[in-house]
């Protein structure tokens, strides 16, 4: 029996390449290109100054499906809370 979370994750994983997904849907080792970022001025400012801008390519280094995750962006490792990661939309790269 699968719980709700696994259900949700399975849906996210079944999305084909090149689809736009929130960053937290990328698994460890997957790459993506940032398409859009949402949030208040403070959060956006922090995101951009740490290297996230539309068009940048990033890789997810660690994502256990819950809790924060780690992304590699512009050669820097950045930890993001799940909430913050959900505000960054990426185009999954094959």
């Amino acid at each position, binding site marked *: 029996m699968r719980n709700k979370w696994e259900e949700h994750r399975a849906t996210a994983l079944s999305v084909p390449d090149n689809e736009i997904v929130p960053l937290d849907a990328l698994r460890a080792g997957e790459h993506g290109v940032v398409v859009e970022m949402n949030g208040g001025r403070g959060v956006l400012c922090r995101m*951009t100054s740490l290297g996230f801008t539309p068009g940048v390519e990033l890789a997810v280094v660690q994502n256990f499906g819950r809790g924060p995750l780690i992304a590699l962006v*512009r050669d820097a490792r950045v930890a993001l*809370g799940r909430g913050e990661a959900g505000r960054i939309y990426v185009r999954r790269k094959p």
Partner: protein
Amino acid sequence: MRSESQDGEILVALAGQPNVGKSTIFNLFTGLSQHVGNWPGKTVERKEGTLAHNGTTYRLVDLPGTYSLTANSTEEVITREFIIREQPDVVVALVDAAILERSLYLVAELLTLPAPVIVALNMMDVAEQEGFRIEPEVLEAALGVKVVPMVASKNIGVRELLDDIDEVAHNSNAYKPKRPEIRADHREVLEEIEKLVAGCVPAPYPQDWVALKLLEGDHEITEMMRGCLSDGQWEAVHDVLRAHDDALVAVASGRYEWIGRMIRAAVTRPKAGQIGLTERLDRWATHPFWGLLILAGILGLTFWLTYAVGAPLQGALDTYVVGGLAGVAHTWLAGGPGWLDDLVVNGIIGGVGSVLTFLPILVIFFGVMGALEDVGYMARAAYVMDGFMHLMGLHGKSFLPLFLGFGCNVPAVLGARVIESRRARLLTILLAPLMPCTARMTVIAFLAPAFFGPAATLVSWGMILLALVVLALSGVLINKTIFRGQRAAFIMELPLYHVPNPRTIGLLVWQRSLSFVKKAGTLILAVSVAVWALSTLPHGEIETSFLARVGRWLEPGGRLMGFDWRLMVALLTSFIAKENSIAVLGVLFGTGEGVGLAKTLATIFPLSTALAFLVVQMLFIPCVATVAVVKQETNSWRWTFFNLGFLLLVSWGVGIAVYWIARLVGL
């Protein structure tokens, strides 16, 4: 040509993003000539030092580490205000060669300010290890500013940097940087804003910079210009800004595009798929299970150090230094009045002693915190603990400082500085006094066996658990009410691991300890003397002293839990140091501090009162040293008194609740 500062000194500002080795370079240049204080009115550390090179004196100011210059944090405001207002002769912008693109982001912002910039390309060795090949001359040609390759930790490139500072400071006419330009799609808007504010920008702010910050939606600059422009002018600016409220991300993207063009020819990137040391270590250190285990191991080691090294040192300091001083004072003052001897020995030397005996534990904790920060582990600890800390409205970074509160609340409060978000930092400081410190545990360990016999261990653990539960609930409560449930965004860099620099850590420990002795020390001494006076005057005995009168006056409050005035006085004196309660109880019950006291107490008070006393002791206002650093770190008497009031209320409330529950179950 800009003249040098009036006294012939050259003013150099050191800027850079966090984790680029700024303090290593600053320490190399200035060594022990540093002055450490706070930026005026802020709780951000300000370090300044001097250095002589080729017959010129340089005054170096270490600016706080910031990722950008848009006013989101105090650090960012301090950095840009310093450069704009003080106009340093040279700004050394430190960048991490291994994270070149991202760390040049701050440089892109610095280049738009009116001070000559030199780029110090630090950590060239790490970049090479990671597979980057960087040609500094090519980057220099592209940026139009000096670029100095360095490995600060190995002293490489330091002399070259000094020579370049010298050259730029004495020849500012030759400084012709390529300034980043805004992306084409926002150029017109920027020009429009600049035209609208032209002539109204207060000196010394550069007009084009103000226009850019307005476009980025910078809060401080927006407020400033709203005050400077007439209503009509502001209306016009505001209309333009409202039509482009997405400009923040576009401006940032533009900066990275510019950086990309600048470094394209200078950098050869590593082949994808290389696995570095950091990635291998992080598979363990940031793992949800192994990461916690590693963290627990590190904490265990810290406390082992505290007990194995810190506690004996504390004891030795107390016996030999404090005891020795008291002995000398006794001999000197033997012929004088008794009260003078008492004042010097118990008031002054007692106060000095309590400051002094804090030092071994502080040194250990500052050392551990400094080492973990320098290695790069601090961010990992924050990462694995973030989910849990969020439940209390705290940040992952709050965990380590708070946890160190188990040893002593003072470093817990001081350690809260690592937290960038002001709200999370404040909350951490306010909660730190609820951590059961060793001094409180000493009191519990003494009293619990007398009352509870074989159940003493259980009661002691129960007290710790209670304190932690109260801490968590207080966190949730304060966060929900005063901070209205807002929480700091969790976006944090995990720096590359590197070998710690003993010099950096050593200087940090030295400065922090010195600052504690200087600042908190004076307050501790003053309160120590004041409480001594209250407990001695007017007749030289504590039983008839003013303090006893205060205790009797407060007794009705204590009656709610079965306390008499003597327990109240013991609580009051625990303000100097928690262990004082036992000594004072010994005097008040005429038994000394030995086993006799415990037995006497057990016959006088019922278990319910004893339990309540332990609870209050556990949650009561902290010792004066902790209060002193709470004031220092919040920079506000209002928050300090709020904290004291809150703890008073909580300790009394929980104490009364425990007392009545105990009575109900027949204790």
